[in-house]
């Protein structure tokens, strides 16, 4: 049985060219970038080049990129770092109910420390309203953190409009772009964001590496103390091979973004058309109009998510009930609760499919056929 991986939003396979680049670096460039000898300087060069390439990919300056151990650390660094350095000015933070847990749990932790957090609701399509942000904004608001594209539903948020709104307000604006980066053209100048988080393993790069973009005017309190790496903003020996692999992954995504977006979108449409053809009953969660090209969240009335996932897995199809980080327990998704309310059947019968590297048209169709069979068998 050929297994079909439709869970690229959880994590993605590494691109063969990324593996090749990392192998090369691991073999020959093993120096510590802080060492002053040849090996150190050579490793430093790789880190510098990567930093500048990543900065370019979002219209930022080289020095505004801070390498981290991944998306969670980047989100935590942005939120805790801003909260701590701005606490003299105010203690109010605005976010949404549908953020990734790396943002939500960080905000909850800050509440324990005496900060006040407004969790904005979303409309039934999973979008936050700019008006709601405006209404929630106060003089003592120090941070607004709203994700670029949702990881469970795929909904894109009105980041540019919010950036516009905040341009005149002293609050810092952070966006978690972990799911969107690589598939959406992002320019931090245009969006007017101060902080932006990215993770490599969602774009066919390695796990354990990410970056935080921070505008030079943003003062972040450090989270990790030690050596003076990352211009004193993040201590720890730089993960050179992963940084090189990350750069390679970014190079590929930047070159292939338009083709890839079209392809992923076509998989999504093909998949839904096939489900319809096979008479499977389903509803789309979210809207196709403001959506990441690779994420598709469907509700299958009359089914149960756990039974569905087990059956899908037996049929060789890897999908998910929500974000992988909460998937272990199958608690109802906080994103779906926010969109549809606590009582909705959709909390119990929705599945996320996410497409990516190595998926083919045939796979999308075959998966849909299999899923239709399972749905028809399970739906009561």
């Amino acid at each position, binding site marked *: 049985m050929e297994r079909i991986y439709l869970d690229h939003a959880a994590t*993605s396979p590494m691109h063969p060219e990324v593996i090749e680049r990392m192998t090369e670096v691991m073999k020959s460039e093993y120096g510590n970038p802080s*060492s002053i000898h040849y090996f150190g300087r050579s490793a430093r060069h790789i880190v510098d080049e990567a930093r500048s390439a990543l900065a370019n990919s979002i219209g930022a300056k080289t020095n505004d990129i801070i390498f981290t151990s991944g998306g969670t650390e980047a989100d935590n660094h942005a939120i805790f770092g801003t909260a701590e350095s701005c606490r003299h000015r105010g203690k109010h933070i605005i976010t949404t109910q549908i953020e990734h847990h*790396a943002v939500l749990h960080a905000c909850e932790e800050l509440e324990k420390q005496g900060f006040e957090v407004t969790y904005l609701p979303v409309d039934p399509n999973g979008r936050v309203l700019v008006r709601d942000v405006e209404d929630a904004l106060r003089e003592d608001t120090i941070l607004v953190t709203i994700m670029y594209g949702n990881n469970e539903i795929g909904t894109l948020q009105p980041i540019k409009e919010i950036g516009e709104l905040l341009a005149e307000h002293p609050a810092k604006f952070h966006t978690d772009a972990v799911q969107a980066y690589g598939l959406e053209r992002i320019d931090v100048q245009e969006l007017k964001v101060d902080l932006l988080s990215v993770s490599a393993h969602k774009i066919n790069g*390695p796990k354990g590496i990410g970056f935080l973009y921070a505008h030079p005017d943003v003062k972040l309190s450090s989270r990790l103390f030690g050596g003076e790496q990352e211009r004193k903003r993040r*201590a720890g020996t730089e993960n050179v091979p992963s940084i090189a692999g990350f750069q390679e992954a970014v190079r590929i995504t930047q070159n292939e973004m338009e083709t890839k977006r079209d392809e992923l979108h076509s998989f999504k449409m093909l998949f839904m058309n096939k489900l319809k053809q096979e008479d499977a009953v389903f509803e789309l969660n979210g809207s196709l109009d403001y959506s990441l090209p690779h994420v598709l969240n469907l509700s299958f009335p009359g089914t149960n998510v756990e039974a569905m996932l087990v059956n899908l897995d037996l049929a060789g199809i890897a999908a998910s009930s929500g974000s992988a980080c909460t998937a272990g327990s199958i608690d109802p998704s906080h994103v779906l609760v926010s969109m549809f309310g606590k009582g909705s059947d959709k909390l119990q019968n929705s599945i996320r499919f996410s497409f990516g590297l190595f998926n083919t048209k045939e796979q999308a169709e075959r998966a849909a056929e299999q899923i239709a069979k399972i749905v028809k068998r399970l739906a009561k």
Partner: protein
Amino acid sequence: MIYFDNSATTKPYKEVLESFIKVSSEYFGNPSSLHGFGGKAERLLMQAREQIAHLLNVKHNEVYFTSGGTESNNLAIKGTALMHRKRGRHIITTGLEHASVKEAMDQLKELGCSISIIAPDKNGIVHAEDIEKEITPETILVSVMHVNNEIGSIQPIKEIGEMLKKHSRVVFHVDNVQGIGKVPLDLYQASVDLCTISAHKFHGLKGNGVLFIRDGLRLSPLLSGGNQEWKMRSGTENVAGIVAMAKALRLTINNMERRLSQILSIKRYIFEEMNKIEGITVHTPEKNSAPHIVNFSIEGFKAEVFVHALGERGIYISTTSACSSKKAAASSTLMAMGIPEKDAKSAVRISLSYDNTMEEAEVFIEAVKENVIRLREVMKS
């Protein structure tokens, strides 16, 4: 090319790279995913955890994966301080620690903790009785490194652990980044509560580390999010890096068993030869020092000058610890040992791996001699 800077970072073993590539290409799932891909990744993660636990002689639920030594040290220190802040705010550490311990302490000081810093003796070693004198009912943590990264002195971890048994409420953290695979340390026997290791110092990959947290001990996490690592460390697990780290640790510990005598005889040779060269002072103590580190000063020469002179001949050594080697300041470790600033400023470090050979040591000694003579002549004229 002779690489004598293995305390800064090491070259990954070939087998380590193979594991990394295999896991990255074939088992790329997210361990938290419920499907088969996730399950496979989770099994690999579990196996790596068990293997590392076995090699460290601890239980698998005491092994927590982090992004490296800096994060492990920060989590151990700040996590303990935050968790026990209501019980007390006094912490004891030494003047020998790595920047990731020292700076974490500085941060806690700003937040209202009081920090006692124990000075080492002239051999770079702290004593359990000096630590005990500082303990008060407010003391919540003692953090002492096992092997110093700059001079290689070994701290009496077992004696300190023994002493701390009388003060059962004090948490004991050991930074073992430089000691692992070089100087054996039984964590249970030494009554260690928290212990840090970093993969890239033992031929694993950068960006991976472990914090050993003794069963039952509670820490306040540094990262919030998806609640991985039993809620102690959120963030998708770096499965390929972790599997590679388990392999690196196994190979390193095998090497320790097989090749320790070889590296010891290289160190002894370097010691003997250094002592013959006029104007060289070796700072690493002959007794109670790790098998892989030798730190010395050459009278009248700036450390950078010497590092570059050897670099030109393809021999790579370092001025002090890599993380701070860009600063021109004298090493705080050497200053803490009572070495005069002028000697401390000219100190250089060589650090060996099990792959270095006696032939390389001979070439190195020749290069040192020639450079000392040449540089001295330049100075005279």
